[in-house]
């Protein structure tokens, strides 16, 4: 498979990159390229220009910024998976990154790239939702912050405009989180058939706050609001967890594909919410 031709620019500053994207109709941002390059090879995507942001300094850091951590645009899945800051403050994201594809792909693909693409079977968007990440987008028009809850619009569609770059994400500290999934080959390998990312904050023996996100279940990852509501204020008991799990797909159009019927996927959503919650509330 051989990509069609395109123009390529590899700016060394963010401003240059944004300028290259300004007014763009069919310009694509290239970070790790683990989705974009195969899509171009299959000629599903035929950009006129590709803007490679990997040569812009300062985009590949994970930093501790007091009440939150920051993950830059060029931070690879492998780094997200293994970085002590992510493991400590955003373990759901570290686990999701660690379960993304295989090591070779994790060595190239970026967390921000995965979030920006928002593929149906991606692991990390769910974790970003559960962790209440904030997306930082930049364009020549300026910068803006987008809450994760407003970012994942639909299958392969995020709130990023064509001329914007997701320059970093920030994740607030606090609480505990985890990510659990059933992969296509069974176990936790490969794309999720269904996955749950959960975040809870427990104080004085009760769940003071919770966010439960599912991905691989519908055409876009979503927050299971009913699940969180069922949990918040509870003691995190088995009953509370079961109640939360029972709301995992409320109001959601569950997808059917080669790996799951609607009924099975709906069932799995509940199972993985429960298992993830059992983990963090154990």
């Amino acid at each position, binding site marked *: *498979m*051989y*990509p*069609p*031709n395109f123009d390529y620019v590899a700016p060394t500053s963010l401003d240059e990159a944004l300028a290259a994207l300004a007014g763009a109709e069919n310009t694509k941002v290239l970070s790790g390229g683990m989705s974009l390059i195969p899509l171009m090879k*299959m*000629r599903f995507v035929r950009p006129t220009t590709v803007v490679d942001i990997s040569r812009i300094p300062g985009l590949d850091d994970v930093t501790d910024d007091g009440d939150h951590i920051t993950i830059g645009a060029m931070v690879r899945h492998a780094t997200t998976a293994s970085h002590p800051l992510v493991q400590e403050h955003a373990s759901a994201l570290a686990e999701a990154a660690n379960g993304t594809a*295989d090591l070779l792909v994790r060595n190239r693909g970026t967390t921000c790239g995965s979030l920006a693409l928002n593929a149906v079977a991606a692991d990390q968007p769910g974790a970003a939702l559960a962790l209440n990440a904030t997306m930082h987008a930049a364009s020549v028009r300026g910068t803006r912050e987008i809450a994760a809850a407003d970012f994942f619009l639909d299958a392969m569609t995020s709130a990023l405009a064509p001329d914007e770059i997701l320059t970093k994400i920030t994740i607030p500290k606090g609480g505990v989180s985890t990510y659990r999934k*059933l992969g*296509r*080959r*069974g*176990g936790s*390998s*490969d*794309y999720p*058939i269904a996955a749950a990312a959960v975040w809870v904050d427990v104080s004085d023996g009760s769940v003071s706050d919770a966010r439960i996100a599912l991905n691989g279940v519908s055409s876009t990852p979503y927050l299971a609001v009913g699940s969180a509501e069922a949990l918040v204020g509870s003691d995190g008991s088995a009953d509370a967890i079961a109640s939360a799990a029972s709301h995992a797909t409320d109001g959601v159009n569950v997808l059917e594909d*080669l*790996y*799951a*019927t609607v009924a*099975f996927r709906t*069932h*799995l959503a509940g*199972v993985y919410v429960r298992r993830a919650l059992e983990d963090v509330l154990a």
Partner: protein
Amino acid sequence: MTSTSVMGGIVRRKEDPSLIQGKGAYVDDVKRTGELAAVFVRSPFAAATITSIDIEAAKAAPGVHAVYTADDVRHLGPNPAQVAVGTLRPLLADGAVKHVGEAVAMVVAENRYLAQDAADLVFVDYEPGEVVVDLKDAFADKVKVHGDASNILLTWHGHGWWEGVIDLPDPSPGIQEAKERDDTVTVSLEMVNQRLLPTAIEPRAVLADWNSGYGSVELWSSSQIPHAVAGAVGVTFGIPSNKVRVVAPEVGGGFGVKLNVYPDEILVCFASKELGRPVRWTETRREAGFASTQGRGWVGTATITGTADGKILGYELEAICDMGAYSHNFTVAVPLLGLFIAGGQYNFPTSYALHCVVTNTQTTDAYRGAGRPEAAYYLERIVDHFAREIGMDPADVRKANYWKPEDFPVQTAIGLTMDSGDYEKNLDALLDRVGYEDLKAKRDAARAEGRLLGLGLSTYVEVCGFGPSALAGLGFSWGAYGLPTAFNGSGVVRVQPDGTCTVTIGTGPSGQGHETTWAQIVSDGLGIAMDNIEVHHGDSVDLPMGIGTFGSRSIAVDGTATFEATARVRKKAAIIAGHLLEAAPEDIQFADGRAHVAGSPDRAVEWGQIAESAYQPHTLPEGVEGGLESSVVFSPPNATWPFGSHMALVEVDPETGDVDLLEYWATDDCGNVINPMIVDGQLHGGIAQGIAQALYEEAIYDDMGNLLTSSMANYTLPVSTSLPLFSLDRTVTPTDVNPLGVKGVGEAGTIGSAQTIVNAVVDAVAHLGVRHIDMPLRPKRVWQAIQDAKE
């Protein structure tokens, strides 16, 4: 024979130093000056009439040398096939397409990128027609694939399958009688043996270089059967076989997908001839589902009638076998191979009806095991099911019905003769090694705790080592390619003037380590060191005939030819050495690179001295001709019948249906073993492919005939984390079909394993009411089966 015997020993492979350093030359690594690249335009429709093809824009695109359609190649005829039952494939779709991905046009350009750019500009106008994908619909002729012809090409029946040669009484009335007895139990299951994509990791690749001066062509092809391809090219272009050279260099996995003559092999020759430049085509992975054959694809019902004490009185299988749209090399012969082992290792009446049916999908053909994994699957699943229904241990039911060692040679249910076997001994060896009773106790204890552990057993007999020359009468020969030989073995052993040895064989290996194993045979026979033996294969001009590598045939057939040729060279060398040493030839022994007189190790000559004399006839004794080589064609009197017993321990997640394969054991019997390391490697890979069918893989078509699993993202091959280490052992029951006593092992692992896994998973959930789950046992299927059983 010699003191340097390497037969039966673990020897590192001669192939490996090249391959581990990236020096192995696969077809896509072979470069020719001035070569062009071809890309195919493929149909998006599974059934359509082609109303027009617009190639003008493509022809005008940068770097394009030619765009060919059916109009350009019609005169070459359709793609040849060995067992040509059904419709042969046109080289390029001619007026109509019959499956998604059928090649409609070929673009040749300066390089692959430009060829793809141009291919995107070819516009084909189609009038879509009705599509039939579902096997039962196709069997009912609801939609006909080829005009008015029925979709049912033929039905293989167990008795009388070879008209005029084998004519057995129909066992059905006897089985019917047994069913009507009131002391019998009849069990039946409808099961799918799903379609698979063979998926050698090296995609197929071809490179043709036509020399208009000599009127000859060289073709490099990633093929298991270079001689057959050479024959097909010769027949197609009307040139003799000595003007065609087909080279299969390193081949990156075959598994049956490279056991064909493909249109692309003919078409690159055509383009090279037309354009006067070498032309290359390399399949892309997504293209492989359209350009290369697929495997399996049966829907069938297996039925067993037996008594409550486990004695089976009759086995019936009726299946619809998916041929895909066109007839390729062995398309309809694959179910026949299943028929060959219809009754397995069991002594009971067997009735088979296998319907070969066409559909609007890519053609099926051999895939590792080719018919035998399917046959073993149905038989070993239904035997297991029968055991469960009568409440007997599955191992005991099998033993109650085996052929006994004293029964051999056994005439099978369809009239073939099985060479040798000791099935109970083999099964007992496995049961003892795994600690069967303890394992069952462990499973039961886990189940008592709510964990779903399952223990699965399958035993099997297969048939391989093709093939007996008599099969040529069935079309099993390269006759359609202008090559008259049956599936005989060929081997040339030549001692060079410097005393080293060159061996040339008619196989087409793709990872089976022939260079090593064959060198072991020759080293053992001549006492020449492994390092001084070079084994050549995969080149059609190297020796006059070669059948290639498939059907686990190489060692039993070509190995034997080499063994015999070695013996002849040794015999002549003994005469020469005897002459040089002034001793009788009978007293000459070969070891450590020399010949010596028995009992007098110091009275010796080096192989170099023998060879030097051999190539100077005036130094030879009277009546001895010059030269030191032998070429043998070996015609096997029968096939061989390896067998074995496999067991798996699995755990099923009751909530998700996720299957965890905990342990896998196998005790196989492939007769004598030349290199245990290589034999184990073949079993590892074969078992992995059977497990993959059981748990992971499926070629899925939608109703429109779209192949939904053409990318590796959706065709889920097992990865390193999917599989456990395998625990192997063997029994050795040599065959008398060949002097080496070897049977073949390339497919055995695959034939024994898929049903072992399914039996294990069903065992894990049987107490919940589940009796069968169709492969692949994805979580969704296992979970659904548990849900359905609850209702």
